[in-house]
């Protein structure tokens, strides 16, 4: 009997995930015309969201103490992070579809961890164009603003993008876990995931208190764009927060993932009926 044995090297360990992801990418790009159309529509959504901010600045000169160029930096950071997370984790908050199709049961029959299988079961390449909008906004924001560049500033941009990506990714996983419990779960979790994205692309100084409680602390959206951007711009954070609070972005990401993994774990236990 050809009993298969667990692989040992990292390359071998990644083989199952690589195989699935590569097939998803090939399948999405194999119909050129349709893929181009997908990219275009995704680009349009990104542009419209950016235009929304631009329209606001037609009536005002600053929002939450930031001018248009500065808000562009906040938007660029948060939107790039969200788009990348949406591309690679966005399907996680579509769990009811997986449950209905029995795909999750099929995952149970494969020798990989469930969550890793779910995450690597799909990738939405069409969202690349959306990420391009965020990346452009970020680049423009970094160029036109008066930033006192130093190695620390470069590091901050890198830390902010990676942490922001991880924070949004964690939100999607949290949503997936919650959808094990919620009927029509996507409706409920969307309020946080997409509401969070929207909040993150605005200066958090305009948020009211309840919004701060949710998106400043519980889902730390303020750390995906606003707080790192303030540090880059040399602006003092509101509410007497310390100057370097933007550097806490990785902690915010870790905090989100702690909730995400807890949510996923409880969700899976609920599904299996093991209590919890």
């Amino acid at each position: 009997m050809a009993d298969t044995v667990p692989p040992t090297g990292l390359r071998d360990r990644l083989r199952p995930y690589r195989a699935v992801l590569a097939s998803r990418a090939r399948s999405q790009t194999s119909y050129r015309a349709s893929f181009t159309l997908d990219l275009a529509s995704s680009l349009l959504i990104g542009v419209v969201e950016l235009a929304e901010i631009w329209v606001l600045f037609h009536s005002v000169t600053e929002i939450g103490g930031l001018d248009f160029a500065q808000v562009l930096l906040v938007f660029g950071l948060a939107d790039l992070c969200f788009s990348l997370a949406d591309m690679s984790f966005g399907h996680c908050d579509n769990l009811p579809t997986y449950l209905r199709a029995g795909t999750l049961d099929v995952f149970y029959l494969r020798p990989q961890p469930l969550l890793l299988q779910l995450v690597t079961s799909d990738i939405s390449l069409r969202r690349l164009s959306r990420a391009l909008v965020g990346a452009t906004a970020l680049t423009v924001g970094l160029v036109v603003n008066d930033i006192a560049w130093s190695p620390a500033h470069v590091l901050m941009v890198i830390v902010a993008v990676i942490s922001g990506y991880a924070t949004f990714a964690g939100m999607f996983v949290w949503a997936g876990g919650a959808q094990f419990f919620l009927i029509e779960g996507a409706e409920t979790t969307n309020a946080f995931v997409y509401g969070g994205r929207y909040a993150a692309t605005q200066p958090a100084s305009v948020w009211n208190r309840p919004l701060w409680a949710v998106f400043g602390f519980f889902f730390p959206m303020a750390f995906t764009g606003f707080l790192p951007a303030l540090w880059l711009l040399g602006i003092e954070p509101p509410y007497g927060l310390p100057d370097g609070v933007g550097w806490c972005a990785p902690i915010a990401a870790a905090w989100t993932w702690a909730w995400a993994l807890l949510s996923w774990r409880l969700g899976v236990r609920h599904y299996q009926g093991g209590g919890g």
Partner: protein
Amino acid sequence: MTDQTNDRTASVPIIETTGLTREFRVRDGLHRRTVVAVDDLTVRIEPGEAVGYIGANGAGKSTTIKMLTGILVPSRGSVTTCGLRPVQDRRRLARQVGVVFGQRSQLWWDLPVRESFRILAAIHDLSAAAEHERTDELVERLEMADFLGQPVRQLSLGQRMRAEVAAALLHSPRLVVLDEPTIGLDVLAKQRLREFLVAERRTHGTTLLLTTHDMGDVERLCDRILVIDRGRLAYDGDLPGLSRTVGAERVLVVDLAAPTPDLTGIAATRHLASEGGGLRQRLAFDAEATTAAKVLAAVSDHAEVLDLTVEEPDIEDVVRRIYASRRP
């Protein structure tokens, strides 16, 4: 190393459940009540057996399978599959079990069949050599060469089912669980699939556990039958025993050249009905006691036979009779 594994596990049952029970809490209007899907199931299945697991819809078959494969946690009792605890050792167990769900697909609908196999080989960490050898074997024995390059969504039901079976067996599992594998297939496709499973079992010693509504599956594939009724084990034994218990008979339907008096005197048969003044007659016979050929020969002595069909015992009917015999 492989031989050692076999030696070590030879004495270990491939499935062993003790008092296995699964309850569900369901909302019934405003109240919540508990439904027992599987009730105190104690079963031991040895390596190499072929077991038919039959019962009405909602009798608890799927719930049992989900507990055997680690998808559901039992409410009470214990279960080991391939010597492993399904929930705790799910990932190790996945390397030894293959499951074919008639209703859900293992394949990627937008990819060619060949590509799905390649991904599954990666998922099960098959070496390139093992992958090619096994894929070639399955493609040949399931006659899939013609549609290997087609996307799964373009396959006929029969082709898709063969691809599903191959997908579940690609990693040469010790235990194969098939949930309604022949549902919706035509006679020829069913026969092909059954022949494949028989051969697979013979060459690899694979243990088969299948749920089905098709008595033909049970007769041709299984040497042991478990009947489940409302979560409880109602019968555990072989097919002749089942037939003895419930008298599951086949029916020979003959169309005769001329109206004939009721054929009541044929050995080992029971005359059921006549139509058209005796032009069409139905004779029930026990497959253990005689054969369709013998009955036909005996009928031919009385009248000229123009046409005939043999009706298999209906599995629902068998199950119903078992249920009835258990409920005074």
